[in-house]
Structure formats: C-alpha cells, structure tokens
C-alpha cells in the first residue's frame, strides 16, 4: 500500500461494530470501544517512543561495530545492521522521522485541502470549476510517481519530504470539504447571515468552517497513515533525508546491504512491522472519526 488511496472517495462502509457510532460521543467512541482503545494506546506508545527514542535507545544508532549483521542476542535484542549498529536503537530513533513526516505532511495537506475545498464549495462558479479540475487532476495522477519526480528534482531533506507528501495528497480532503460546504451553503442559517449582510469571510469563519472541521479532522487522521506510508516508500527508494534514520531508510539499507539474502530477518521484519502497526493504529482511529462524522454528512446532504 503506497499511494494516497487509503482515503478513497468511495467511503468504505463502516465496520459492523461501530454502525451505531453516531449515537455515541467521540469520547465514548475512543475509549469505549476496543478499537478506539487499541488505536489510542498504540499511537500513544509510538508518540512516546518518538519523543524519547534517543533516550531509550541502548546504543548510539549510528555507532558501527565489527559485529556485522549479528542475529538477536541479549546485548542486541534485534541484532545488528550491516555496519554493526544496533537495530533496536535504530528502530526507536527512526520512529521520530516517520511520525514527524506523517503528521506534518498531513497538516499541510489538511490546510491546503480545506482551503481549496472551502473556496471551491463556497464561491462556486469559475473558482469552483478551476479548483475542482485541479483537484481532479491530483486525484487521478499516480501519487507515488509524482512524489518521486518532485523529490528527485529537489535535494533530499526532511522538509522536502514533508512538502512533497503534503502537496500531493490534499486533493481527497479538498473533494470532501467541497461537498460538505456545498450543502452548508444552502442551509437556512447561512442564507440568513448572508441576507443580513455578513461578509464572506465572516460566514466562512463562523458558520462554514466550524461545521466542516470535524470532517476535516477525521480525514486528516487518515492522511497521516498515507503520509507515513509515503515517507517510508520514498525513503526506501533512496529519496529520504540521508542524515536521518527512519523505518523506510532502514529497509533501504537492509535491502541494499543484502540482508534478505543473508537471511537477516531481524533487520528486515521490525521496521516494516512498525510501519504496519502505526498505520493500522492511525487508520483505525481515522475510521472511527469518520464513522462519527459521516452520518451527519449524509444527513446534511439528504
């Protein structure tokens, strides 16, 4: 799974357990269901590791030794890399890059997507037509190849990664926000505010945005998952920040160093597993939020 397709415009129908999600509050949804608790718990754990990773790491993750591609032992619980560095320490420290890129890129994508979606939905007409075809375009273009091209043209760094991922994954948000704004625009309270002579800015700020925020939020959480996967894929292809350890770059190094043919599963399995678990945790939360938000969306459009 590598593209921005987790947030498909086909809204994946809710999983059975949370069908009645709308009847409950967000708090109950997060803490009351096992899915919510699991997602939050895992995300909390990863956040903790991301913040304190280098303190927790038993070794300097870059320190090489002569113990090359050693299998797990008491001193190296997850073995060593091709340079004799400690895999476990790299795993801990690598959490930070994955999380930073994931959240920062999702933030950019959310801001961009909401801005475009709001403008397009609220103003309609030509603004909408132009912005909508832009959105369409970004939805159709294969995301990973686009990211690759952009990342290759710029010099690799964390900022570039964040920017590239953020700039290419906002279209889904834009599309959803636009639809929501369309329906809000026709609602009575907006009509009334307009009749009273309120400015566009004012209406957007007080009526439209507050009613769109939950939707944006739910969508953004899903984009975090996409961004984490994208960062890993780009780093794996050698387009990541060369100075930083991330799970993707660990996989790249492992592959380049021939860890698979050396049978060094301890170097290959953990980073991928961490990516998978983090993505699952984030996606579970995202779907919970979406289920919470979606019924209202349907209600509004119906």
């Amino acid at each position: 799974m590598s593209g921005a397709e987790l947030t498909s415009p086909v809204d994946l129908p809710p999983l059975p357990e949370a069908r009645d999600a709308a009847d409950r509050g967000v708090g109950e949804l997060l803490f009351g269901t096992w899915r919510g608790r699991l997602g939050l718990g895992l995300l909390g754990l990863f956040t903790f590791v991301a913040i304190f990773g280098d303190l927790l790491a038993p070794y300097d993750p870059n320190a090489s030794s002569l113990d090359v591609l050693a299998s797990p032992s008491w001193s190296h619980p997850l073995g060593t890399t091709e340079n004799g560095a400690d895999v476990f320490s790299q795993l801990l420290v690598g959490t930070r890059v994955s999380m930073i890129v994931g959240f920062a890129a999702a933030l950019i994508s959310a801001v961009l997507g909401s801005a475009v979606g709001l403008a397009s939905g609220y103003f309609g007409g030509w603004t909408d037509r132009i912005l909508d075809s832009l959105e369409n375009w970004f939805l159709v273009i294969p995301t990973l190849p686009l990211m690759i091209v952009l990342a290759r043209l710029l010099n690799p760094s964390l900022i570039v990664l964040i920017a590239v991922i953020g700039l290419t994954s906002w279209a889904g948000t834009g599309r959803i926000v636009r639809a929501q704004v369309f329906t809000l625009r026709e609602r009575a309270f907006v009509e009334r505010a307009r009749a009273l002579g309120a400015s566009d800015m004012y209406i957007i700020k007080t009526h439209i945005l507050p009613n769109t925020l939950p939707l944006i939020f739910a969508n953004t959480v899903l984009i975090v998952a996409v961004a984490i996967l994208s960062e890993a894929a780009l780093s794996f292809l050698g387009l990541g920040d060369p100075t930083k350890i991330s799970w993707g770059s660990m996989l790249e190094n492992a592959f380049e160093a021939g860890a698979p043919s050396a049978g060094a599963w301890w170097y290959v399995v953990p980073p991928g597993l961490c990516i998978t678990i983090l993505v699952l945790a984030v996606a579970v939360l995202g779907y919970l939020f979406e289920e919470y938000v979606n019924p209202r969306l349907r209600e509004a459009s119906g």
Partner: protein
Amino acid sequence: MSGRWLAGKVAASLLTLVFVIIFNFFLFRVMGDPTTQLARLPQATPKELEQLKADYGLDKPLGGQFVDYVGDTLTLDLGISQRSRETVWTEIKDAIPWTLLLVGVGTLLATLIGSWMGVMAATRRGKRADDGLLGFSLFTYAAPEYWIGIILILVFAVAFPIFPAGQQMTPGVEFSSWWAQFTDVLDHLILPATAMTLMLLGQYFLIMRSSMVDVLTEDFVTVKRATGLPWDRVVRSHAVPNALLPLVTLAAIQFGAVAGGAITIETIFSWPGLGELSFNAIQSKDFPVLQGTFLVFSFGVILANLLADCLYFYLDPRVQSR
C-alpha cells in the same frame, strides 16, 4: 444522452492528459535547470554547455521549447536517456509489457481472491473466519508492499529457496519451446505477483465484504430466500452480482496505487518493467527517463480510469438512464 456522458468522460480524460503534459514540461524545464542535468561532467566548459543547450533546443525561448516539447511528446519522441543513450521510448516500450503482465496478474488475482474472501467473510459475519479474514486483509492493507516482497524473498527464496526472486526469466538460457519459456516466466512471476496481489487484496476484500453485507440485508434477498432458493444460490446468483459495482469503482481508484506498487515491487524483484526503469532513473538521475515513465504512468492511470468509467456505465443502469 448516454453518448454525451461518454463523450464528456473522454473529454475530461483528455484534459487531464493535457495537464500532465504541461505539468511535465514545467516541472523538468523550469524547476530543475536542464543544463546541470545534461552536463554529467562537472568540468564541462561553457562552450560545451552551449553546444549541449543547442543540441537539446534549450537555447530557444521557453514558448518555442514548449511547442517543440509538445510536438515531440505527441510523436513519442521522449528524448534520449542520459544513462544508456537509447531513446527513452525504446526503453519504455520494452518495459511496458512486463509491467502490464505483473500488474494485470496481480490485479486479477487480487480481485478474484479478495472478493471471494469478502463473500466468505460476509456470509460468515461475526464468526471466527470473518475475524481472521478481516485481520489478515487489514494487515496486508497497511503493510508496505515492498516489505511484504522482501519477506517473501526471505521465506521463499532464501530460507526455502523454491522460487527465483529476480528478473523475469532465467538469464542465459535458450528455450527449446514456448512452453518452456512460459513456465519459466511463470516461475519468476509468482513471488512479485504474490506481493502485488497481497498489496491490493485488502481493499477488494473490504469493499466486497461490506457491500455483500449491505446486499444480504436488502429486501430482495430476503424475498428470494423466502421463495425457497438454497442459500448459496441466492448468494451466488443474486447477491454477488449486485455487490460487483463498487468493485469496479475501486479497481479504477486502485490504479494509482498499482503504479506506486509497480515501482517498489519491480525494484525488489528486478522485474524489468516501468517501475524498475523509474528506479534506475532515480538512482542515476536520468531525468528524461524519469519524465517519460511519469508520463506513461499518468497516461496509463488516466486510461484505466476511463475504461473503468465505461465499464461502470455498462454495469450500472442508473448511470445509463441519466
């Protein structure tokens, strides 16, 4: 009416394609300075650079360059690879069939197996089989496909070396028959196609499962059931066809992800398709090739979307009557 709908779709696809072409031009000519990309030798003298610029038509004004570029692109003149000095189109042309094979087999298997699993899970809702299938597909859905690929190599090519895990056929062998070649390619295809299938499987499973659940609770199924039709016949001949529609939509949306997956999976398995070509271009900063593969990927995805739209059009009576 329906003809107009189709024409509209075709026009929209063409427009998107035009966008891609324009975008491609500006991305590579304006964002990256083409002369630094052209001059592989840092010690190139200014005179040599001028010569290079003239060779590539970079001394013309941007407008003229753009016209040249559009003309070249339309005639499939995508430039010359800086790495191999072959024309970019030759390289791409050789790679396309292999990518189509991998992507086609992967998508086909993912659709079949994924939707079969979805039906299984939906008819056993809430049971252990359902939970197991759900867990499995969520996992494959969230796991990076290249990681799955590496694990496949670890297990099936290193720990138990029963599959080849590189290239598309045994190199250096002259095949005595097309059958021998066919089985050899098949042998090499299994691991990458499995990775591709696992990458796509989850989405097909989820969509099939939930639409089946929806369909199975609809009235007409209850009615059919009440007329005494056996349960599996109801599922097979009534529920499944009704749940197929979202599958087509999904297939269209997946093409973007497929393109991404082709790059990483082909890289892992040195499968000589467009993905590996892109990867080599990334590594050697071969911008003409990178530009070409991006163009072809985009074109492929746009075309696939259009095809899916057409398929949808024929499958869904609601669209037709519009």
